[in-house]
């Protein structure tokens, strides 16, 4: 089969990028076919044919043209139309590299390899091109530029990469060819873009960047061009946080632009963007670009993220995806950042650093710093260990992996040549050597162990920068050891820099700075700033040294208020105490001490609210109040308010102390400040507020009744308790005050909605402290207190009931109601009143009876006793007794029954029977049966009246057997006496005979038989049949 014509069509629009290839082939003599292939660029294409059977050439040409025309009409365009791929004519006549100018055999070899072109070799051309770029072999530029367009994507990529490092303006045209030609894979075109950006002139770059800015979404184009950076960041993150598609897609465009307006937002994005699909591939591209550009910051950020962040998933091996699409491929990838990808990137970070180091490229230090600065103490991981069996010694061996052991590139930089670690390059890990246990030995390295020490030696300023900026102890240890060897440089470091180093929290750095500084100290001409830095340094021996120096020239040093204030508010306890002790022996003028106090207060206000600052704040407060008490007399309201709103307890206390010592506020504390103090979460501060109030003299306090009232009703218990003695003192000395105050408290008690604990405290104050001043409270108020729903109000009412309320003013109903009150003292008072007003009780027995129905046992007991002993028989009429029995309480019913049996009189019998029979409880119904035999016999009308009662008793289920028997006996007796009684009995029996209880049923049938026998006319549900005689 011979290919005669071919058309390569492609279609690019939006995310769509597809190709359509048409072939015209000769399959035999005079036989032609037209085949086509189509699909996404880069993916496997699908085949088809337009000619099921071969046709002649003319037809084949026609079909070919029609097909191409139809596809072109649909939007496809021609990208190439030759049987052979379009390669720009490569001029083989390459000028041989000038061997004489090249002394470096490596460079020479590379040039030779590139000159040979794409011929088969063990040394791939693309690798040689890449290496040329790495080594910045400018001689290779012409050779490399000629390699563009070989059709080998890898080679094109490497060419673009290398040109970006070594190219000149001449290469722009060929690179343009790559970027314009959509048949090149995207990554190659992107790299060509990158290369163009790197090598073009400044004017051209402006144009290129502008074209990139045009590609940004509309909402940020202007901001990206003109700034400011803050506005761009705001808009950018607003969109990015909503996962705006366009924003996510233009992350790498931002890095192409990379001007001062977009860079801050870009850096922040790189720090925070998730390593997830959509985001990750942009970050990966940026990482490679940064590596190429030597952008240490971006390279460091991304490298550190790859080192610190765990992978998202583990990609199964190749066989798991044979014939299937990988989940990380394409625009709609489901996954990103697999374990394999992460490990590749971690390895790559160190590989690219290592190449720089090996090539003695000064950029090594720059890039390494970029990475090291991204690690902080927070990144230290817990030390882990694993055990292995050592077959040579027959022992279990513990191997440790220390805090930074898992950070591959980091460890390679700082501990490549360490004897303490084993470098496991397959696991990308540094394990501790068997002789080194990181749990026991935490001192850090004692000798230099970093990679490429010579490079570091030549870049001491970089090491100094690490010491100034790094927040990682391990990095400081490395930098100090490396810099110590550079004695000449050390002796030339400026003093301000050293002072800055002294404030470092890391011992190693402080120690380094201290050693350098000691030799420079001149006692004849002491430097306050230096001594101050030493006194506040993290290194103890440095602080002690500074104390010694200060001791010698105490007056000189403490003459400077700023120095003194800095010492007082030192972060270290020993210096603070030293300053306090020393100040006792120094005379400071009042102006200076004012200034010192203010400066120290400013230091305090600047402290963070962290709990660890608490002891420092307390000590500084103590020093200020002890040493500069006089200076506190004129502090402004604003400052005090700021002190009081600080979260630290010690600072708030200082605010309180200032008020106490203040020349005007101590006599007349501003309400706003007191309010601030009382609202503090700290007990001591609230206590201090009470102290301020209590130290006012009584006259002033009497004026501020509102304040005292608010404190007595304060939601915090300690405030209420602290002010209580003061209130009591004033109340005892001034009865007018006491009466007004008590009235307000009572009113407050009657108002619901107070915080928990306040009403009970108020009632205690009223009962315990102000009891003598409550005699004016009238009965109506006491009654309201008693009827209140709040327990404390009821308590107060109970206390006042016996003294403030005249028992005669209460009705019997009210007395009875009080006897059911929940508060014992109230019930007791009500009993006492009942005793006093016994005559009144007797007169209204209807209400008195309800005393027995009281809710509380003790009141009922009192009632029983009262009825037994103090109520005359004359008052206990039958109606009263029945009313007692009407109660639903069994004890009261029993008491009533007892009274009835004791005081029974013949004439009342009928009434008892009739009225008690209506009682719903079985016990009273049984009690009523006692009267049946006496008052219900021979009286058919009575029987009729009692009919509901009989039914009620007889229909009880499994209850009241005795009562039932009695009723049945009565009925059977009475039924035979008169036809009227028989009627009543027959009605009851008719209903009852349906019962399932055999005994009762038998008796009813028996009774009905008897009635039928005697009064055959009375209708009954039975039919008597004579027993058949056989």
């Amino acid at each position, binding site marked *: 089969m011979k290919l005669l014509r071919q058309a390569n069509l492609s279609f690019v629009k939006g995310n769509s990028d597809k190709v359509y290839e048409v072939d015209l082939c000769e399959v035999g003599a005079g036989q032609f076919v037209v085949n086509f292939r189509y699909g996404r660029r880069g993916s496997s294409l699908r085949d088809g044919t337009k000619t099921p059977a071969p046709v002649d050439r003319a037809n084949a040409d026609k079909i070919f043209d029609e097909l191409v025309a139809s596809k072109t009409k649909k939007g496809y365009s021609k990208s190439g139309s030759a049987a052979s791929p379009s390669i720009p004519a490569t001029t083989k006549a390459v000028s041989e590299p000038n061997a004489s100018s090249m002394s470096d055999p490596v460079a020479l070899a590379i040039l030779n390899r590139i000159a040979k072109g794409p011929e088969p070799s063990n040394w791939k051309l693309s690798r040689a091109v890449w290496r040329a770029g790495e080594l910045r072999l400018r001689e290779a530029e012409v050779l490399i530029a000629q390699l563009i367009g070989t059709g080998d994507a890898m080679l094109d990529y490497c060419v673009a990469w290398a040109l970006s490092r070594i190219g000149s303006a001449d290469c722009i045209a060929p690179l343009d060819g790559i970027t314009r030609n959509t048949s090149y894979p995207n990554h190659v075109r992107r790299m060509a873009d990158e290369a163009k950006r790197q090598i073009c002139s400044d004017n051209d770059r402006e144009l290129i960047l502008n074209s990139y800015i045009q590609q940004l979404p509309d909402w940020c184009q202007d901001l990206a061009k003109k700034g400011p950076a803050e506005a761009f960041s705001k808009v950018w993150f607003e969109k990015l946080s909503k996962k705006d598609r366009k924003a996510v897609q233009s992350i790498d465009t931002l890095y192409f632009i990379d001007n001062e307006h977009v860079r801050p937002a870009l850096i922040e994005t790189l720090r925070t963007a998730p390593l997830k699909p959509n985001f990750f591939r942009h970050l990966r591209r940026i990482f490679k670009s940064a590596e190429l550009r030597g952008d240490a910051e971006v390279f460091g950020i991304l490298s550190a993220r790859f080192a610190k962040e765990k992978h998202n998933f583990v990609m199964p091996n190749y066989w798991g995806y044979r014939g299937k699409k990988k989940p990380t491929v394409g625009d709609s990838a489901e996954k990103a950042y697999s374990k394999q990808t992460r490990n590749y990137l971690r390895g790559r970070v160190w590989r690219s650093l290592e190449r720089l180091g090996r090539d003695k490229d000064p950029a090594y230090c720059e890039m390494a710093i970029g990475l090291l600065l991204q690690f902080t103490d927070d990144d230290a991981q817990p030390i882990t260990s694993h055990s292995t069996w050592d077959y040579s010694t027959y022992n279990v061996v513990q191997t440790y992996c220390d805090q930074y052991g898992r950070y591959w590139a980091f460890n390679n930089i700082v501990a490549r040549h360490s004897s303490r670690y084993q470098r496991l390059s397959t696991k990308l890990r540094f394990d501790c050597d068997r002789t080194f246990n990181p749990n026991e030995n935490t001192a850090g390295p004692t000798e230099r162990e970093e990679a490429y020490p010579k490079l570091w030696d030549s870049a001491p300023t970089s090491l100094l920068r690490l010491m100034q900026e790094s927040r990682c102890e391990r990095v400081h240890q490395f930098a100090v050891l490396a810099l110590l060897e550079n004695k000449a440089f050390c002796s030339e470091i400026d003093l301000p820099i050293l002072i800055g180093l002294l404030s470092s929290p890391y011992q190693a750095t402080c120690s380094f700075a201290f050693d350098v500084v000691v030799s420079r100290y001149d006692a004849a001409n002491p430097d306050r700033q230096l001594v101050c830095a030493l006194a506040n340094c993290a290194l103890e021996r440095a602080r002690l040294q500074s104390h010694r120096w200060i001791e010698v020239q105490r007056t000189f040093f403490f003459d400077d208020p700023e120095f003194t204030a800095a010492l007082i508010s030192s972060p270290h306890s020993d210096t603070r105490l030293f300053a306090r002790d020393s100040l006792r022996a120094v005379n400071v003028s009042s102006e200076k001490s004012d200034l010192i106090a203010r400066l120290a207060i400013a230091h305090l206000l600047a402290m963070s609210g962290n709990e660890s600052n608490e002891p420092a704040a307390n000590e500084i407060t103590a020093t200020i109040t002890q040493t500069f008490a006089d200076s506190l007399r004129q502090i402004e309201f604003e400052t005090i308010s700021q002190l009081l709103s600080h979260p630290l307890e010690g600072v708030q206390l200082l605010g309180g102390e200032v008020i106490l010592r203040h020349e005007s506020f101590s006599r007349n504390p501003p309400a706003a400040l007191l309010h601030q103090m009382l609202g503090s979460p700290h007990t001591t501060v609230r206590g201090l507020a009470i102290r301020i109030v209590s130290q006012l003299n009584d006259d002033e306090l009497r004026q501020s009744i509102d304040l005292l009232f608010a404190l007595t009703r304060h939601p915090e218990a300690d405030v209420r308790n602290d002010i209580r003695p003061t209130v009591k003192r004033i109340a005892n000395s001034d009865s007018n005050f006491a009466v007004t105050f008590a009235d307000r408290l009572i009113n407050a008690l009657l108002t619901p909605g107070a915080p928990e604990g306040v009403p009970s405290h108020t009632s205690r104050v009223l009962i315990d402290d102000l009891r003598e001043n409550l005699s004016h409270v009238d009965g109506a108020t006491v009654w309201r207190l008693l009827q209140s729903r709040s327990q404390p109000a009821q308590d107060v009412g109970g206390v006042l009931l016996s003294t403030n309320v005249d028992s005669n003013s209460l009705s019997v109903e009210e007395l009875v109601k009080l006897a059911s009150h*929940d508060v014992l003292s109230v019930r007791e008072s009500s009993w006492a009143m009942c005793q006093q007003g016994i005559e009144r009780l007797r007169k209204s*027995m*209807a209400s008195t*009876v*309800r005393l027995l129905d009281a809710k509380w046992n003790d009141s009922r007991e009192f009632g029983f006793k009262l009825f037994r002993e103090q109520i005359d028989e004359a008052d206990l009429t039958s*109606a*009263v007794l029945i*009313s007692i029995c*009407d*109660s*639903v309480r069994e004890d009261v019913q029993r008491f009533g029954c007892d009274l009835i049996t004791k005081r029974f009189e013949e004439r009342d019998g009928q009434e008892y029977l*009739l*009225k008690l029979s*209506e009682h*719903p*409880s079985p016990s009273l119904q049984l009690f009523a049966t006692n009267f049946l035999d006496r008052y219900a016999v021979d009286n058919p009308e009575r029987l009729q009246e009692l009919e*509901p009662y009989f*039914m009620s008793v007889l*229909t009880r*289920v499994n209850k009241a057997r005795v009562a039932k028997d009695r009723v049945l006996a009565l009925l059977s007796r009475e039924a035979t006496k008169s036809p009227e009684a028989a009627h009543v009995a027959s009605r009851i029996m008719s*209903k*009852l005979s*349906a*019962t*399932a209880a055999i005994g009762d049923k038998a008796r009813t049938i028996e009774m009905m038989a008897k009635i039928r026998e005697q009064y055959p006319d009375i209708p009954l549900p039975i039919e008597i049949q004579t027993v058949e005689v056989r």
Partner: protein
Amino acid sequence: MEFNYSYSGDSTVQNGLSDTSMSFSPDASREPTFFRGELCKNLAFREAISALHDVVVSDLRWQPKERTEYLAWAERQEEIDWAEVASQREEVKLQIEATRQRLEELRKIRRARSSSFESAKLKYFDYIRRRDYDMWWVLDPVITVHPDEVFFECFSQDESSYGRLSAGFDVFQNIGEFSCGTTNIDYSAALYDEFQKIRSYKTTTFEIDPSGFDVATTGEANYKEVKIDLPDSWVRGFLQVSSAMALPAHSFDLHPMDVY
């Protein structure tokens, strides 16, 4: 579904020697519904309203057994059993036996010492329970005044039964003015006790108190506000009953002995 009621004071039943007055406090936030009359079939009314009360408080739902104490005991026992299994040696067994006896003694002492506390605690809880009895049930029945009858409706606690007590006007005498409608009345467990004191020999006045509405117009806030969160199933049941009443009904009488 949350319902807000506001009652102008509590419903009260006053029992004297020869008279009883029942005054129900209706929901003042609804249209005025009131009624006043004297009962003439006292006992029947008493028994009927007691039966209605029994419907309200009945709860036939299955209550799981309180097993915490048993489980604690079982756990302890299991430990003992395991200890016994583990004690292979006689010596250990003896030791365990001695320890167990000692433990048992100690427990006995503890029980004896804390018994008064425990009983006081029980008493206190009982007091609390009784004091806030009404919290336990949504007792408030619905009351409807018709031109020819007054009826009470309620649902049982488990929402399984519906009870309705219709009192035709022949149950009352001396009927005062009334206004038809449906309303809720304030009802508490203490009222049930007072109902038990209704007697035929006492004049019993029955009123759905109209005074609350008078006060409502003057806008004073001395109201008892009650918020009841009715379960949806309760509301659904009520609607179902209402719709079922519109259907042709089968009605039948029961002989007392049928429910004996």
